[in-house]
């Protein structure tokens, strides 16, 4: 009746039980508060059913930040284990649990933090930067968000019902096949990632079409801001790489559920095929994560150097080169799997090549700073830390691109240190730069600079302490995913340093939370009335802070790069002209994204636990609701000109209420 689901699935160790109860308590508190403040209607109308990308973006960021919290806790648990699990002591975690923790850590960080912050930022900023009022497919956008959330919910559900995968963030067969992982952990992983992955693919199509087809008049491709260019390239990667992930996951689930033999050790299966396919997706994936943040840094560096970006054209070509090359390097993730020298050599050379356009970008950022009037606000601090960390981490990447060198350090902590340098130094610090840069635009007031600086230094010091020792440990022979080691290795002191690093990072996180609370408390003092707190150069700064729901009352006309900068110069010269307000079409709210998402959640749950009647029922429900939504002929509403005029002339947006 319930497939593999029994009451046993609810039995857990003390740590998981503790977490489950805490989550339950928080949920009850939130629900109670919603009832108390009568917030359900606002939540439903303003957030759950919204098709406004500025709001959808914020929801992505909230989910991502919750998953970041979970990921950092996982990291803390790993470091705490390894600081003490030496010789006689085996730490406080059982091996089984430890494996689930590092698996959950990687899975949460890549899929639910990385992809979440990318799509969150794209949603909030891209339409504004191109002078558009929405994305190309607003409903699809909402659906993508809900599919993403369903993936996150399933990962978290595994903590309470059943267990998660212990096979690493990419579950290689044969370990991930039924024979060696008979429980539901791998299935939780497969379906949460598969569902979120479909959401990402749909968003890839959405933003690709948005950027190509919805730019303001006069904004040719070579006049687009670099952030938008980086988003376009990232979406190209999403469009052509994610289908590979869809297939790889589907084939693994077919092996596990229908007894197929794609990657099994018997029946003619080939486990190495999984490794090949998953990394053919996996390498473009890491570029999907980083490219938007290259774009962020281009905006930040030019704004805070009061200088236009150096080498715009070469920056665009560098992005294109990286995008193209990222499809040609994937084997470097499995140099040691057994391919011959010529195969390894080809991919090694291609991997080294991809460092070249990246280097072009780094130099162009530095040349932008040279001769500029530099303001060392927090976004710039994050940028400078990025240069150091991503630069050194990138160099270790080039080192590992040489197959014989890689044979020494593959799957050691050297590898772990490399990619954490890239992801933390690049993606996360890039996100923190974006956060402090665009916060005033989204919320209408600036963040507290001083606390932001303290948080930055804690993160930076914490990172150095947590990750740099791992390079040394890797060289000393420490492998990844280890939960215990001999005292004779001499590794413990370095593991302890790494654990101290995490403490600093946690301090940084706490300070960022304090910064947010303090900034909210001081918001009246730090209100952004101009919409342009940093003297920015691109169109998002041409709107109020926060922007009105329709973004632009009058579609901007673009005459060059740094469109807003030119607009400001022209204003100084000539002054404003009269505008006639026109009626605007905007999409109506819709709960269908949420409803279809909920059907998909139950479908995923049914597939994981083999509850076949639930699978059939929810599949049908999802299908019917999709058909209903796609048959809707009137998804838009016309906002009359008088209303636009009234809203537009409001001096200050006190809160984000709108229809």
């Amino acid at each position, binding site marked *: 009746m319930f497939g593999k689901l029994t009451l046993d699935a609810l039995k857990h160790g003390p740590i998981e039980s503790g977490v489950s109860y805490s989550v339950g308590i928080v949920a009850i508190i939130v629900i109670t508060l919603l009832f108390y403040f009568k917030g359900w209607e606002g939540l439903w109308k303003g957030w759950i059913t919204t098709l406004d990308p500025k709001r959808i973006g914020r929801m992505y960021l909230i989910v991502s930040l919750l998953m970041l919290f979970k990921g950092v806790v996982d990291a803390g648990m790993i470091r705490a284990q390894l600081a003490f699990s030496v010789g006689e002591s085996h730490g406080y975690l059982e091996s089984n649990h430890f494996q689930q923790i590092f698996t959950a850590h990687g899975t949460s960080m890549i899929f639910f933090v990385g992809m979440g912050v990318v799509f969150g930022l794209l949603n909030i900023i891209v339409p504004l930067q191109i002078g558009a009022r929405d994305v190309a497919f607003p409903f699809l956008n909402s659906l993508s968000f809900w599919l993403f959330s369903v993936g996150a919910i399933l990962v978290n559900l595994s903590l309470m019902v059943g267990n998660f995968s212990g096979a690493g963030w990419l579950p290689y067969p044969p370990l991930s096949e039924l024979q060696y992982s008979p429980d539901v952990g791998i299935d939780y992983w497969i379906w949460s990632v598969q569902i979120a992955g479909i959401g990402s693919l749909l968003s890839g199509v959405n933003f690709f079409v948005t950027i*190509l087809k919805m730019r303001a008049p006069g904004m040719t491709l070579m006049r687009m801001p670099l952030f938008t260019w980086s988003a376009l390239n990232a979406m*190209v990667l999403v469009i*052509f790489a994610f289908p*590979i992930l869809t297939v790889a996951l589907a084939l693994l689930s077919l092996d596990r559920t229908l007894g197929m033999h794609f990657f099994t050790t018997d029946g003619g299966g*080939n486990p*190495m*095929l999984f490794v*090949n*396919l998953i990394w*053919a997706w996996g390498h473009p994936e890491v570029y999907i994560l980083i490219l938007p943040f290259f774009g962020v840094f281009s905006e930040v560096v030019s704004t805070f150097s009061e200088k236009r970006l150096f080498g715009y054209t070469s920056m665009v070509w560098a992005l294109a080169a990286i995008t193209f090359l990222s*499809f*040609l390097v*994937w*084997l470097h993730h499995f140099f040691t*799997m*057994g*391919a*011959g020298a*010529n*195969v390894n050599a080809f991919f090694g050379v291609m991997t080294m090549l991809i460092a070249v356009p990246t280097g072009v970008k780094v130099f162009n950022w530095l040349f932008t700073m040279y001769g500029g009037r530099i303001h060392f606000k927090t976004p710039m601090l994050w940028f400078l830390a990025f240069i150091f960390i991503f630069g050194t981490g990138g160099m270790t990447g080039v080192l590992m691109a040489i197959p014989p060198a890689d044979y020494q350090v593959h799957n050691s902590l050297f590898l772990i240190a490399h990619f954490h340098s890239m992801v933390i130094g690049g993606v996360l610090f890039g996100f923190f730069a974006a956060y402090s840069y665009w916060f005033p635009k989204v919320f209408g007031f600036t963040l507290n600079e001083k606390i932001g600086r303290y948080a930055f230094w804690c993160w930076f010091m914490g990172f150095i302490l947590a990750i740099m020792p791992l390079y040394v440990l890797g060289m000393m022979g420490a492998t990844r995913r280890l939960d215990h080691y001999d005292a004779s290795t001499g590794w413990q002191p370095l593991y302890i340093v790494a654990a101290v690093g995490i403490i600093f990072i946690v301090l940084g996180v706490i300070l960022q939370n304090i910064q947010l609370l303090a900034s909210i408390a001081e918001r009246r003092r730090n209100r952004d009335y101009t919409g342009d707190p940093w003297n920015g150069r691109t169109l998002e700064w041409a709107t109020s802070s926060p922007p009105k729901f329709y973004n632009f009352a009058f579609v901007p006309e673009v005459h060059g790069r740094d469109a807003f900068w030119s607009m400001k110069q022209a204003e100084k010269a000539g002054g404003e002209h009269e505008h006639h307000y026109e009626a605007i079409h905007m999409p109506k709210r819709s709960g269908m994204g949420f409803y279809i998402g909920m059907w998909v959640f139950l479908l995923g749950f049914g597939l994981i636990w083999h509850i076949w009647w639930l699978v059939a029922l929810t599949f049908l429900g999802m299908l019917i609701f999709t058909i209903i939504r796609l048959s809707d002929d009137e998804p838009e509403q016309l906002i009359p000109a008088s209303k636009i005029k009234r809203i537009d002339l409001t001096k200050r947006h006190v809160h984000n209420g709108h229809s």
Partner: protein
Amino acid sequence: MKHKIYTEHLGTFKSYIIGFILSLLLTFSAYFLVTEKWLHSQTTALILAALALTQALIQLVFFLHLGQERTPYWNLQTFLFMLGVLFIIVLGTLWIMHNLDYQMM
């Protein structure tokens, strides 16, 4: 409907007929090539591949109207890029898996 929508690739009846007849010819050629065993299997395989690619091109042009859009030809550009990625992934996978098979089996 108040006004006609300018639909970019308005296929003509002629284009569909041409595409259909050519596809029919290519399908039968491929079929009889195999059943009648006119050539060696290796040559046959190459010719089959060529026939398939040709028919795909025919259908892309005559049914899907590839290349008949206005500038900047976004459909064609995305298609060509997809083709590039497709060849990299397929040929790359075949090369890698074949090489692994040779080295390890």
